[in-house]
């Protein structure tokens, strides 16, 4: 990955997101004293510097970035789950972070020209879509976001998306009905596709596997191209461990080969994938 650097970044701020959810999230801003390309869909591998455990860095999608004079700041939204994200949650302004990035490919935005772009986000998966949404807006592509989560507090970045896209372009769904429609986000998403059947559309999605699977089926059904940003356990993030395998259709005795989510992805066309 040309342009990938392994460096120390400095924590500018790290805010635990107050929410009514049973889950917890944090938003982290890192400052790098170098500028590197940061593309929508890309990610970095990060870890608090000088801590011995957990060992491995964690893959985090770029949520947003900002250019300073000679510096760069990047934002991440993380859900606090296991050891890695618990350690991220302890970071304070001024702390140092091991940073490896930028990693991975990017969304294919050219394909969206003269299409309506439909973004589908589940839980913290929305983090991977915000820079994409910014870019689509910049390219003047009509963009709609379908965002789902367990409850209101799990719709990560909702406010930022609404400011960017305007509230009528953001359709929400929560499992507990605390915000937007009650149920899976794929339901209003499917309805929308139905109502616009035949119009040129393109889908970009990121979220839990079952959601992506359903998005992929719907995309198939309506013959709309879809790009999915995948997650997979990663040890290295830059292609040397082959831990992040995903089955991709191919002519082979089994009908697929394994590709690497970290360097061949994380963004794949949904019809490439061997589910």
């Amino acid at each position: 990955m040309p342009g990938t650097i392994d460096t120390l970044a400095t924590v500018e701020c790290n805010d635990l997101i107050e929410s009514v959810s049973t889950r917890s999230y944090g938003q982290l801003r890192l400052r790098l004293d170098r500028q590197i390309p940061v593309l929508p869909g890309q990610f970095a591998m990060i870890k608090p510097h000088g801590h011995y455990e957990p060992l491995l860095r964690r893959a985090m999608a770029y949520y947003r970035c900002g250019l300073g004079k000679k510096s760069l700041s990047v934002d991440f939204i993380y859900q606090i789950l296991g050891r890695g994200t618990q350690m991220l949650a302890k970071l304070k302004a001024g702390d140092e972070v091991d940073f490896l990035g930028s990693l991975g490919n990017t969304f294919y935005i050219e394909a969206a020209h003269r299409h309506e772009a439909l973004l589908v986000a589940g839980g913290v998966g929305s983090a991977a879509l915000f820079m994409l949404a910014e870019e689509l807006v910049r390219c003047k592509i009509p963009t709609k976001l379908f965002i789902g989560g367990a409850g209101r507090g799990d719709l990560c970045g909702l406010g930022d998306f609404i400011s960017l896209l305007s509230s009528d372009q953001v359709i929400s769904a929560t499992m507990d009905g605390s915000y937007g429609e009650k149920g899976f986000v794929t339901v209003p998403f499917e309805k929308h596709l139905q109502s616009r059947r035949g119009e040129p559309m393109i889908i970009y999605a990121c979220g839990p596997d079952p959601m992506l699977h359903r998005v992929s089926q719907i995309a198939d059904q309506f013959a709309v191209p879809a790009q999915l940003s995948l997650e997979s356990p990663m040890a290295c993030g830059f292609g040397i461990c082959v831990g992040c395998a995903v089955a991709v259709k191919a002519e082979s005795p089994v009908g697929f080969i394994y590709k690497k989510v970290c360097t061949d992805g994380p963004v794949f066309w949904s019809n490439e994938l061997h589910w």
Partner: protein
Amino acid sequence: MNNNPQSAIRNPQSDLLSVEIAGIRFNNPVLTASGTCGYGLDMAELIDLNKLGGVCTKGLSTRPLGGNAPWRIVETHGGMLNAIGLQNIGARAFVEEKLPELRRYDTRIIPNVFGYTVEEYIEAIEILEDGEGIDGYELNISCPNVKAGGESFANDARQAAEVTAAVKRAARRPVIVKLSPNVTDIAVIARSVEDAGADALSLINTAVGMSIDINTRRPRLANVTGGLSGPAIKPIAVRCVFQAFRAVKIPLMGIGGIATVEDALEFIIAGALAIQVGTANFYDPSASMKIIDGLADYCRRNGLENIGALVGTVELNH
């Protein structure tokens, strides 16, 4: 970082750090371990391959292999389990697609080779014999011997010797045999492989482990069990090197949880003439570079003319 292979300048540290193992001259005793650096080239963006002592490639087989289903890795305390399933592009593709680029760097190239029968080892070696710029082979004998009931070659002194002897007959180049820690007595296996003609040993491969997701009640690895690597296994690896050093005369490469120069020194003092950095490449890609600098510093500070003087110098009398 200077990543242009052509401009490789001879490393000024090489007098302090150069070592010879099985007739192969390494600029320094720091290699990247098999399966943790791809085919070497994959690291070129992050480290200076010209500075590295050598590269052990991902395990190569006669034909390309697709590998195991995901999940393939799980992090554990101080380490990780992997069950990659020996996914690789095959020996032929390595020679044709990777080697020409890789050999432009001033580093030793050690393909790691495996098979499920003795014949498969030989076949893979025969393909690699055509490759120019290969310096030696590392035999991964931790594979199930499908002809002999599926027990690992590495777990049985006779089978380990058999595959070693067969490969030695087939190979022009030096053969380093990589041992597994999953045995009752590593000294027995080490001696048996030495007697069969191995030029050097590398040790250790991963320890067999398992992790279960308590929510789904399924193994976290699709393959059920996997290989434990990382700092967690370092004490086991140091012990194995120490025991092998006392059991054989051929040189040893130490592997297992090495992440810092202190780790590397510990293995050298235990008996390793070279070391390999594995899992650390994942979480600290420049670990090998820091270790090389650190070893040179150590030699200078301690007035060693060559790092070799430190090998096996652990003192036992208290």
